[in-house]
């Protein structure tokens, strides 16, 4: 027959072992989850066709709120005319000012022969330029930052 000391010793070991088993079990679950995520098709995660965001940094003379996030669609046009995807009501912005395109897994900014030009990271662009998150885009007197 087991005496109290032996039972206590077994219980003591068992208690600490349970704690560690719980930890390893949670880690195993986490590993499995990460694998599932890796193998999941990427397409199911996108509901809307949004390929990025424009964040307003300086709203210039438009009523936009600094910090506002605007969706970038595969073809996004920016200008004063209401037909654009992003409408900027400012005298410094041409009716059709700038176009953002999604090609080859990258975003491209193209100037539409605007009067005041399109500035990417403060350089006036003449041909389409590929941009990454963090790039600063200036359209007339409005400044944006690209974000994911």
């Amino acid at each position, binding site marked *: 027959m087991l005496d109290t000391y032996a039972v206590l010793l077994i219980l003591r070991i068992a208690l600490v072992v349970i704690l560690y088993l*719980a930890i390893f079990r949670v880690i195993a679950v986490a590993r499995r989850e990460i694998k599932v995520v890796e193998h999941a098709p990427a397409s199911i995660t996108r509901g809307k066709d949004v390929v990025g965001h424009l964040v307003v940094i*300086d709203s210039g003379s438009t009523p936009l709120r600094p910090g506002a996030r605007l969706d970038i669609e595969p073809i996004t046009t920016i200008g004063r005319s209401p037909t654009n995807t992003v409408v900027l009501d400012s005298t410094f912005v041409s009716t059709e000012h700038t176009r953002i395109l999604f090609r080859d897994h990258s975003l491209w900014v193209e100037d539409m022969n605007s009067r005041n030009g399109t500035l990417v990271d403060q350089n006036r662009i003449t041909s389409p330029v590929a941009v990454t998150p963090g790039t600063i885009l200036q359209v007339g007197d409005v400044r944006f930052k690209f974000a994911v």
Partner: protein
Amino acid sequence: MIFRSRYRWTEMGLLLFPAAFLVLALLELELTQGASTALTRNTLPPIDTFTPAIGLIVALAVTHVLLTIFAPDSDQTLLPIAGMLASIGVIMALRIGSAPGFNAPTLGAKQLAWVILGLGFCVGTVLLTRDLRWVRNYKYTWAVVGLALVGVTFVNAIRHFNTNAPSRDVLAIGPGGLSFQPSELVKICLVVFFAGYLSENQEMLSVGSVSFGGVKLPPLKQLGPLLFMLGLALIIAVGIRELGLALLIFGMVLSMTYAATNRMTYVLGGLALFTVGAIIAFSVFSYARVRLQIVTNAFDPEVYPVAGYQIVQGLVAFASGGVFGSGLGLGHPTIVPASNTDYIAASFGEEFGFAGLLALLGLFMLLVFRGMLVAIRARDPFNQLMAVGLTSVFALQTLVILAGNLKLMPLTGVPLPFVAYGGSSVIANFIIIGFLLRLSESKT
């Protein structure tokens, strides 16, 4: 994700661990308390009931079923981790409460009641935050609630300014000796408010527009709430002398700001402010000097009987546990003052040893890991920041109190999440778990 059944099998499997722990721990407690072995000097009647274990297991199971119904897609590891920690808390309260000299046989039952209440609050949070947008829309209300709680504490602090109570942050409510610590709920309110503020001004803060001595800073309008939060932490430290809460708010603000802006400038600036504040506090307030003296000279024969007793006995408790501990129910944790609250880690360390403490730390690390994973997977900046803030509260609390117990920094009365005895803390922590569960649902 596609072939997964809706039933939370993983969670159920993981919940078997706290259940097994509770049953075995109670068995051991019963043996050590009841049997007249040479190992024990316990004179109190043994714990001759398995009610605590069964009660907590049933409560966890009910929570599990409710989550299956109301939040089937939420994270399945959070409840088992929190449940495991809470089980340790209940067992330790039970064990310390029945120790000779402590004379509080109902301590374990009370802690059990708090945990069950906490699980109720957790499910309640999950139900109420079905649409997280209302939480965000009322962010100023949350800020006002948080400030009101701080204000109440502040008034209380002024009322008791001459008493030498170590914590001024306890409010007595009701006749039954029930008390309530407002700071526990302040944390949650401030995280919600700050997440709302940061998610709206994220870009402004990370880019900056006003150049100030070579460093680009955002305009005052955007910077205001950030400075306000840091000021609040300062007021709490000076006015209420609740250093732990101040550190918590400070650390939470810095981690959330860093997560939102990815700029080290804020963290470095915050740390510089902290250093300046610490130096000023050290030279102006005597209590700050005393706190530091306790840490540096606890073993001094003159300091030890006056102020060093607790911290030295805490270290002795850790040391006497050794690698494998004295065994649950076989140590003498009650020698250390506040063995069931501030020094719960020392009590646990004495009876479960270094091996047990390492496992406890592992559980907290997993909790933080899962919380940060929730943040990474969340879509919306507000949800992400809230998960970061709530998780950092767990991480900071654990670090601050464990470092205090181990004499690595001045001791501040922050409860070890889920494990330390105390109703407000347990309930607030389970509310945080409720928020994290809701945030972890990929749909939101």
